[in-house]
């Protein structure tokens, strides 16, 4: 018992670190959010979210993030299931197959997507070579969604894979034993038992997708204005840090709200996000 208390002091440096490098910067942002450019107190930067432009881009962000999350889930679940069934003993290997692409610079990878998706790009060349009609996808919302799916897919696969590998095989057998066919077993047993992983995955994808701006900058052709872009532009183009901070705070509150709703769905308390 006493040992435990002693050990928890190991988190001391980190607590200090959190205070300085997480909380303090957050206070700076909060400070900007609650003041005007001349330094007097205001709530305008927070209420600015109600302006049609901001609402519109927030709504678009939610739509894109939601779509991204759904697509990631749909792609990732079978992947995790297949990987699980392959019975690879070395879990670390799986993890690294998915984060390995990050060793190529993110921006380069997105540029590569431009090359693949553009009107005369690789994808359309292949399509026309096999006699299919070409598609116009680059610089549309679809391209932004695709880029986000690409970027965040690993964060969906890994937690689901981990959750699946914690399921006891015998439970699956027991379901079959009680007469459940493949589908019933899947919906009644496998999915509920991997719920924690799915929820982590959803959070890990939805949250960054909501605040992302680089993907929409590079694949949206400046036509897709997400709330992340608005914030970025307030900080740079418009030189209005106060408004940028205000919108960031609102976005954070929004994220926290949606996370706590999701955590309500998940009754178990689970701190870990990734694994």
């Amino acid at each position: 018992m006493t040992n435990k208390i002693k050990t928890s002091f190991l988190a001391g440096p980190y607590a200090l670190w959190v205070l300085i490098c997480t909380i303090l910067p957050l206070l700076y942002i909060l400070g900007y959010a609650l003041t005007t450019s001349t330094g007097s107190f205001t709530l305008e930067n927070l209420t600015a979210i109600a302006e049609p432009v901001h609402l519109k881009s927030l709504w678009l962000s939610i739509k894109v993030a939601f779509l991204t999350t759904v697509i990631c889930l749909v792609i990732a679940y079978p992947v995790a299931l297949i990987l699980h069934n392959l019975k690879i003993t070395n879990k670390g290997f799986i993890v690294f197959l998915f984060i390995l692409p990050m060793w190529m610079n993110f921006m380069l990878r997105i540029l590569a997507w431009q090359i693949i998706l553009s009107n005369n790009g690789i994808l359309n060349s292949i399509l026309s070579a096999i006699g299919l009609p070409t598609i116009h996808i680059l610089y549309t919302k679809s391209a932004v969604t695709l880029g986000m799916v690409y970027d965040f897919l690993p964060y969906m696969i890994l937690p689901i894979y981990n959750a699946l590998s914690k399921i006891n095989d015998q439970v699956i057998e027991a379901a079959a034993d009680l007469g459940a066919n493949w589908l019933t077993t899947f919906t009644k047993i496998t999915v509920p038992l991997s719920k924690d992983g799915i929820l982590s995955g959803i959070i890990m994808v939805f949250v960054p997708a909501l605040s992302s701006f680089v993907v929409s900058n590079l694949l949206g052709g400046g036509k897709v204005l997400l709330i992340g872009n608005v914030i970025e532009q307030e900080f740079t183009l418009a030189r209005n840090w106060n408004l940028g901070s205000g919108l960031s705070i609102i976005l954070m509150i929004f994220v926290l709200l949606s996370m706590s709703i999701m955590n309500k769905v998940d009754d178990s308390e689970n701190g870990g996000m990734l694994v």
Partner: protein
Amino acid sequence: MTKVKKGASYFYLGLVFLFLYAPILVLIVLSFNNSMSRTVWGGFTLKWYLNLTANDNIMDALGTTIRITLSSSILATILGTSAAIGIHYMKKRHAAIMLGATNIPLLNADIVTGISLMLLFTRFTPLGEFSVVLAHIAFSVPYVIFNVLPRLQSLSEACYEAAMDLGATPAYAFAKVVWPEIFPGVLSGFLMALTMSLDDFTITYFTKGAGVNTLSTMLYTQLRKGIQPELYALSTILFLLAFVLLLVINYKGEGRKEAHK
């Protein structure tokens, strides 16, 4: 029946990996492109690879990147691992608070994190390489913690007690029993921190001092006037290095398992 199923699942896996690795293939091809434009195929060349070491700017940026990436991920790993251990043994409520705070960097848009850290650092220290390292630690520590914590949670308390029972001091018991169990988590946390640090642009950009260039920031400032193809070559080399390293580690891991059997 099962063969068809197996075939279908391999096909599906293949598609997903194609999706993940297609851009990388494109970039590797580009690194052999004898043209400054990325949309024009100017023939096959190795010159970007051969020129690489002669390009001071890129070599400088590479050096800076390696220094920043390594030191930030090592420090983040140390800080994160000890934090994870501490949090694991904390009271539930305190642990929840710490984890909540840990989540904040993951929730914020990069640019907000970047600018807020810049505001903080300019108060206390001149910007330079060191400030970038601090910033990188700030955003990669959560990944370390979230990799180590589950390991600790699945660690059986009984093993630690058994070690104590056999006469080990707490420190010895930690080194011999706890550490080997959480090490895979520490390692993957470290590698994640490394990768994140390597890949980051936004936060680096705002927290770096004058004249400090990482590969990411260098790439970004070259967007308008064309990216130096040497950078494709360098990225390819880095990627392949990581890939080979992964294969070696995996092969070794398998080998060790075999030996045990």
